[in-house]
């Protein structure tokens, strides 16, 4: 149902408070439920991104919206956290390290997404982008919630501000936008697997019944 939607909205709304609200949000949920919610949210974002990316790439125009488009990545603008890491290396990390990497990556991805051309594009595109950013913010908080419920410390401080230079021309910016969406896609795909695996490691929470009664 729409329970994760409500959850996301609540977390996104609470995000405006100075204190980290995720602790209040998920303390009562228990690790198992928390991970399930995060998994659900990741899948939802994956689905949303398909539509958003389709619309945005059409806005960028061909060849960006062609299926096999694969432009070069320019080293000097290594701003977007890359999800293409050696899979064995990734699996070899501790749960804590993997969660922290997810948290940091999505925080930065959110910043870049927000900076996506706000002026141009149709009103529909801007609206979709806005909605996606809200949902992504919910994911960041959700991951923080999972980490706190498992007793892991949160990665220190806010994500580093994008100090890297903005693309020097409009075409390069289009390529940056393309890669941002592509990386986001890969991250979400991999995170879903991560949370699915994590769910099986954590024993089912006793609080399950309590949640059901709340109608959540």
């Amino acid at each position, binding site marked *: 149902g729409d329970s994760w939607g409500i959850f996301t909205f609540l977390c996104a709304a609470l995000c405006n408070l100075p204190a980290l609200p995720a602790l209040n949000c998920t303390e009562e949920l228990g690790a198992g439920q928390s991970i399930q919610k995060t998994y659900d949210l990741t899948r939802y974002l994956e689905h949303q991104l398909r539509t958003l990316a389709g619309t945005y790439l059409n806005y960028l*125009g*061909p060849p960006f919206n062609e299926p096999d488009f694969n432009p070069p*990545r320019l*080293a000097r603008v290594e701003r977007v956290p890359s999800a293409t890491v050696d899979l064995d290396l990734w699996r070899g990390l501790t749960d804590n390290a993997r969660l922290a990497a997810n948290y940091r990556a999505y925080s930065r991805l959110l910043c870049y997404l927000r900076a996506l051309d706000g002026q*141009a594009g149709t009103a529909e595109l801007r609206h979709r982008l806005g909605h996606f950013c809200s949902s992504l913010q919910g994911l960041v908080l959700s991951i923080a919630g999972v980490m706190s419920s498992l007793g892991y410390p949160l990665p220190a401080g806010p994500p580093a501000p994008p100090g890297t230079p903005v693309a020097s*021309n409009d075409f*390069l910016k289009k390529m940056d936008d393309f890669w941002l969406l592509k990386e986001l896609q890969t991250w979400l795909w991999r995170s879903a697997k991560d949370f699915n695996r994590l769910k099986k490691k954590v024993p089912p929470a006793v609080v399950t019944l309590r949640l059901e009664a709340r109608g959540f």
Partner: protein
Amino acid sequence: PSFVSPAADPAVISPQDPTLLIGSSLVATCTVSPDFHLKAEDLYWTLNGRRLPAASYAALGPTTLSVALARLNGSKQQSGDNLVCHSRDGGILAGSCLYVGLPPEKPVNITCWSKNMKDLTCKWAPGTEGETFLHTNYTLKYKLRWYGRDNTCQEYHTAGPYSCHIPKDLALFTPYEIWVEASNRLGVAVSDVVMLDILDVVTTDPPSDVHVSRVGDLEDQLSVRWSSPPALKDFLFQAKYQIQYRVEDSSEWKVVDDVGNQTSCRLAGLRPGTVYFVQVRCNPFGIYGSKKAGIWSDWSNPTAASTPRSERAAGGCDPKGGEQNTTLRRELKQFFGWVKKHAYGCSNLGIKLYDQWRVWLQKSHKTRNQV
């Protein structure tokens, strides 16, 4: 598998991200960086993913290839046409976004309205054609006629794509000048100036709590009641109302115009046993004593009600011909007798009482028939 290229840009295109008028021609050049060991003959161009014919290429140097584009059409997408310089194997070396379009036309048809004299919303239409192929920005500006300062509206798209909302700091009893500026990469166009006084374009909320109910057992009437919009109390304006109603499966609305400033009305001449949809709207007039009318509010949400259906079989018990006079006389006699019993003085005699009697009559007629 994508490759990460070295620090220098592989190639440079000139012009980079130009803006052009529809129909113009362009010669673009692609110069490869010496680090790449590519020659002009190793390159090719695409525009929006489509390869450009080699006949339009020219080698201007060992590492520079040009392409000639003639009579350009308007950009395929507002983010710019993608002109790309490729190496032989298809790899992208550089790109340039071409913005081909037209300067904007003067925005037209500016209409504004004020909700309860508190704010101002204006909408407009882009100039004829509208399609400039370039992203066009609209700015609504306003200033008091007798004072110099221009103000810019900030809240856009409140009432459709070409609209703006000014929420506060508006003066009354004094004219404003309002206009819209459209701008894109190719130029600016300014609409004609519209002059208005806020008090001349006032509208209000639709009436609330619209209730439609039957009038006893009367088959051809419905009674409509509503509350005046709350703002009426705060401001020195009166309200006049209009009702529209239609039968459930028809799209033709009937309008009742002479409702005046009452907050109730009776609809008559309706069909029995039919569902009707009713809406009410309000027009604030007499603002600060003026005789001018304002702008009609939106219609209230439709309320539905049905007229009762007679339970007598059609053509059953209606008295015919000469019998009618006797029936009428008898009815009148009965009526006055009943009035004597139930009406204390003539002041209570009115249509309501008559209705009550008719209802009573129908009820007692029924029981008489059932016996």
